[in-house]
């Protein structure tokens, strides 16, 4: 079976899969046991599966594992409960979660965005997060959390 050498959250891992078309998401979730990236649609329409590839937000539910060349970072790779990433901390401070299923995508999208645009306007945050869907209606807090993170030292 083909093997792929990957870098996930700073660790070298080998993926042994029979199908290079298998989306990265299933390897991260089932083989590495990561819970950050989530299955939402399998169509690249909702953002729940978002991870970083070399710092850019990608939809891991439609990204073939055979095409992964670069460093993969998941929600787990950003920070921990004890030492959260500033964006994770801002989401806790704003209590910007209801069910929390979409939150992985919101945070991963926001972290990649803030790297490019460190001091966005609220309107820019709204436009950036447009492709990420939330069903609980937590948007107001999510916007506030991203703005808070952008203003944090």
């Amino acid at each position: 079976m083909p093997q792929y050498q990957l870098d996930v959250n700073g660790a070298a891992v080998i993926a042994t899969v029979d199908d290079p078309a298998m989306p990265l998401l299933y390897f991260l979730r089932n083989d590495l046991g990561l819970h950050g990236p989530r299955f939402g649609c399998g169509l690249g329409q909702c953002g729940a599966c978002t991870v970083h590839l070399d710092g850019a937000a990608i939809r891991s539910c439609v990204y073939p594992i055979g095409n992964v060349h670069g460093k993969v970072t998941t929600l787990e790779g950003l920070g921990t409960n004890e030492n959260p990433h500033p964006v994770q901390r801002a989401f806790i401070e704003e209590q910007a979660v209801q069910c929390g299923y979409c939150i992985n995508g919101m945070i991963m999208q926001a972290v990649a965005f803030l790297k490019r645009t460190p001091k966005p306007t609220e309107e820019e945050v709204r436009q950036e997060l447009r492709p990420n869907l939330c069903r609980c209606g937590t948007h107001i807090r999510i916007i506030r959390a991203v703005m808070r993170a952008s203003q944090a030292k």
Partner: protein
Amino acid sequence: MNAVIDRRRFLKGTSALIVSFAIPLTRGRAAPTSSAKPVDLNTVESFLAIAADGEVTVYSGKVDLGTGVRTALAQIVADELDVAFPTVAVIQGDTDLTPDQGPTYGSLSIQNGGTQLRQAAATARRALLQEAGKRFNVDPESLRIADGIVIGPGEKRVPLQALIAPHGLHIKMDKTAPLKSPTDFKLVGHPVQRLDIPDKVTGRFTFMQDFKIPGMYHGRVVRPPAMGATIVSIDESSVADIPGIFKVVRQENFLGVVATNEWAAIKAARQLSVKWSEWLGLPDQRQLWEHVRHTKIVKDDVTSHTGDSAHALGDAAHRIAATYDFAIHTHGSIGPSCAVAHFEDDRLICWSASQATHNLRKQLAAMFSLQDEQVRCVYIDGAGCYGRNGHEDAAADAALLARAVNAPVRVQWMREDEHGWDPKGPPTLLDMRAGLDANGKISAWESELYIPDGMAGFVALVGADLAKLNSLGTLSPGGVLNDLAIPYAIDNVKTTAHRLESTPFKPAWIRSPGRMQNSFANEAFFDEIAAHLGIDPLEVRLQYVHDARGQEVLERVATLSGWRHRPKPDRHAVTSVGRGLAYVKYELVRTYVALVCEAEVNRKTGEITPKKFFVAHDCGQIINPDGLRNQIEGNIVQTVSRVMREELLFNRSRVTSVDWASYPILQFPQVPEVVMDLIDRPNEVPWGAGEPTAALVPAAISNAVFDATGVRLRSVPFTPDKVKAAIARLAD
């Protein structure tokens, strides 16, 4: 104040799900043995345990569907028992461990579930203080508890756990056990941070979709391409080349695949060659409302009847009539439904994000001809469900596959399974009539609701229906009659629900079922009456709301929104901003809400932008004000999505809106601002807040559009095409 979260302690509560799996599953056909944990509603130990190390476990039949109720329930118990907040963990919705407090629906988790837990804690508190009084030989009244330690005169100290008899909190629940005074609350009424959020933002949280057990296979379902189609033939060789495929499972028209890995299951489900029969049993969507109106009525439920409305309408100087409709909606959970099932010996254990694990147990037991006690359903948090979505159906699918392969199976629905097969909020039609007398008094009000028969019963499980097994299903649209009756003192009122024999899609409840549709018609129609009278909608409501708390929310929302000084919109400009008001006393017996929407309307494009909402909210005692705000924001934003965008699409065979492109929901750029005024009444009972505000959003937007343009929107969703057509009609 924000309580610090003890992660270790919190995780203990969640990981207990896994730990308790180590409990032997086999107990035979007999009822649980005496060593089993009690779960009846009459004893404190069903709800609470205090361990030897002082840690408190709350056993809650109500579950956290993403609302934060786990934290609120922990606040209630910690406060009532006077134990430190981090020592409290909550186990939810496990039929072997938690009492059946009813499904988690209807905005009742705090109101009913929390009240029961508080009573359990108060009963325990009194018994433990009495025991301490005996030991110290003092009057229990002279004792107090701080951080789980009973403090007596002098140096006397004893921890609560040391006062518990060897058999635990085997104390009868006592409704008369004295409750703590609200002035002594340390946690209740405060914005304690949610227990689950740190793990949810770092990826350490275990959702249902993350749950695994050893030896577990991955399953996928293969649903018919037409909802009533039957299997003609299957070519199993069509998936034989997929590495990891384990079995194709068929039972009647239930079809699924089981594989050793998830991707193999997904590929096999897509690749399996199946010939299905044709089926065209759905109505033509273009004639949906004619179909609803002509569906056989099995009975009429008159939900309120005062005076003689027919006579008063006949005598009225002016009569107004209008028809309102509300589209079919899907729950649209962001995480498609998922479950793991396992048969071991003669017992079935099923992990599910069901809002009603105790009911699911009965349904699964019926499906597989087991006794209820032979089925254990264990709740694990899923994506928000907002009602009876597909979680229970996924559980039935997992159980069917698990039995077929005699091993644990995880079923994860794909997006098209969720959008295509979760039960739907039924299409709802309302005819409204009112009469005004010569003095401008509202003399008559009549409404006729067209809604499927049934209440919030057992919704048939899809897998069971396909496999031709009995899952106790009945037509169950939810408590849809609520709020058809009105919160206004009008002399002659008759509100009637025509209960329909059927509806195109299997119905179930979605957030504020019936109450939202009924409140839409009531509150928009009331606005029509106000316009007809030429009186401000707020002043007319104040005239007919004879209830101090109702008047207070109306006055407060008026102040909050500057209602009485609002600018008059220019109804001829291309874009104009209007304001609309709506009011509810939920189910006429609880939470009061008044809502003002400020919306911009573009007459050229027909686009409506709800920009800002003002809410005055009275749900009695507030447990966690930040949790409440979070819920109210969600009520509004989610309902703006439903009202502005959502409509199930279908052809004669099946649902065709099976993804987020064909069933779009609200996105960030369109999210409105929300401003609120929360009324806290610490001495009153706590009422629900997960639904009431949602019920008002459709009418508040419709009324704002009328204010801005003079156009009445009576059909949800408020699409640009409908707006443009209504504006064109107005111009004619």
